[in-house]
């Protein structure tokens, strides 16, 4: 077990190293530097001094090694857009908003998705099931920014029930969370339905019924407990997606989170910020995948390593 985790972590570090190189290479190749936008009037000497200050005059491999050295000390550099703020500080300031949005979305996704899936599994091939299926097809297929636009048009502009955007209180949270949660609700409910149906057909469930257990205790003790295990594999990839946030949801609803910084930092060639955010994304994804696999081994004793 320990050995398995250690090998996985080593592999993860290797992947992250390569990924950081690719990102570094991609972003430094982008035409135009951080101060080439023509907004500031600078003499050549000033520009050269600025570049020297941030180490941009050195060859790329040296810049990379300097960056890597900083990362080992958990120093991701200073943001170019906000020269008085470090990348870590900026992420620390804006990420909580995104996490807040993401966690609420996760709660909705599981809070609605699991009951919906159970109901449509138990009432299989009835009107309720078909309705849930249609809902999840639409939820899954329609991109969240389309939901966002439709919701703003209908609920904010036509009915005027909710504000069109911003992040100031519970009323502002409703539309972005619902728009963002549609697809995860669909995914969770489809998986729940499939695995509950499978669990319902299992022999031990028939035995439980035969020995006269009440429907409720069959469901809770024998069906649902087994049916929830596959959900771990669905939940895994959802979590990093949701807590790193959606650039589109944040843009449409003017949520002051991480996503908007991603866009502005790429357009202003804010190198430390781009690579900082990219690595944050990659680490979160890699770690959740690892945790999912480990959780799976604990939950399902049949899963063995190799």
């Amino acid at each position: 077990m320990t050995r398995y985790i250690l090998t996985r972590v080593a592999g993860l570090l290797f992947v992250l190293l390569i990924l950081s190189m690719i990102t570094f290479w991609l972003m430094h190749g982008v035409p135009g530097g951080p101060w080439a936008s023509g907004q500031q009037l600078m003499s050549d000497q000033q520009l050269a001094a600025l570049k020297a200050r941030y180490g941009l005059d050195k060859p790329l491999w040296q810049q990379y090694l300097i960056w890597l050295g900083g990362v080992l000390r958990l120093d991701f550099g200073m943001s170019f857009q906000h020269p008085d703020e470090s990348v870590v500080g900026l992420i620390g300031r804006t990420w909580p908003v995104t996490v807040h949005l993401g966690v609420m979305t996760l709660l909705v996704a599981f809070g609605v998705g699991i009951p919906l899936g159970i109901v449509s599994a138990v009432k299989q091939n009835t009107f309720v099931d078909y309705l849930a299926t249609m809902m999840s097809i639409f939820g899954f297929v329609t991109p969240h920014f389309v939901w966002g636009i439709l919701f703003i048009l209908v609920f904010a502009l036509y009915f005027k029930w909710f504000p069109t955007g911003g992040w100031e209180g519970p009323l502002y949270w409703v539309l972005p969370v619902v728009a963002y949660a549609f697809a995860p609700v669909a995914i969770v409910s489809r998986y729940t339905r499939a695995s509950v149906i499978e669990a319902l057909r299992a022999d031990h469930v028939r035995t439980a019924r035969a020995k006269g257990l009440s429907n409720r205790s069959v469901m809770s003790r024998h069906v649902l407990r087994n049916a929830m295990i596959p959900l771990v594999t669905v939940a895994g990839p959802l979590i990093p997606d949701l807590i790193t946030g959606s650039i589109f949801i944040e843009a449409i609803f003017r949520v002051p989170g991480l996503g908007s910084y991603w866009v502005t930092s790429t357009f202003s060639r804010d190198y430390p910020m781009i690579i900082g955010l990219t690595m944050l994304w990659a680490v979160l994804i890699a770690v959740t995948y690892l945790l999912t696999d480990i959780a799976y081994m604990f939950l399902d004793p049949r899963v063995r390593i190799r």
Partner: protein
Amino acid sequence: MTTAQLELAKQVPTHVLPKRSLYRDAARRFARNKLAVIGLIIVIGLLGFAIFADDWFIAPLLGREPQPLIAHYNYDEAFIGPTGAFPNSEFWMGADLNGRDVYSRIVYGARISLSIAIMSQLVALFIGLPMGAIAGWRGGKTDFVIMRFVDIMSALPVLLLAFLIMLRVGASYWNVMLAIAITSWIEICRLTRGQFFTLREKEFVEASKSVGAKTPRIIISHLLPNALAPIIVSVTLGIPRAIFAEAALSFLGVGINPPTPSWGQMIGREGIANMTYFWHLALFPAVMIALTMLGFTLVGDGLRDALDPKMVEGK
């Protein structure tokens, strides 16, 4: 009759049954699936939009520029309507802030969206299939190297990687197509590898090896046909994802360059900013993106159900 004869009699009908291929069976099952047929109708309608937006196929013969056919105007013809006009009988979906006909731009947008999505998936197939086939067939070190590469590629969200690539290479039609292709071959590669891994251990492969068939022949005439069904499904279901990716990149301003219309770009450039008043600028492209993704997803799901060999009847 003796029991042995009975056993024999049971086996006869399978030989007498008319020979049906998996694909003909699949087509029948597909036609019986209502949702899949609805999806197919949507897809065909959109393809009609894309192909017949203007008469590009006869214009060169007549020696003139293509003229709008289904579209009412050319996509970049400005100030033909009042700026920001709401939908009316002349401008079905209104006019944008440059006075261009939104309906015509939506029709031309179908061409951009569908062509990029379909081409990118074909390119992804041409990268992913051989890579997966080599990894699955050779195994060992080759497999290890290819799969570590796949691991690295899948450590980032697809859209993020495509976005970084687009920043480097610059916004253009071909670049968007390639960026999406580069980020979507991974799944096809994984799938092909998995299929080849299990198939190469099967008895019929061993049989053809023992009669002296060469590797390319085994791969092309034994492994590939057996591995094809899930790969077809994966490519079909990749199309809606590619449509989303193109829309998303154009939305962020690194996709299709104006004045060429793209649904995502129409939302991102004018739609969002003016939504409180000119609601039609964001609504129609958004609905088109959703409709297109719905169509291709229904077709893909239908194909998956139809091609599942576990569902073959008459067995």
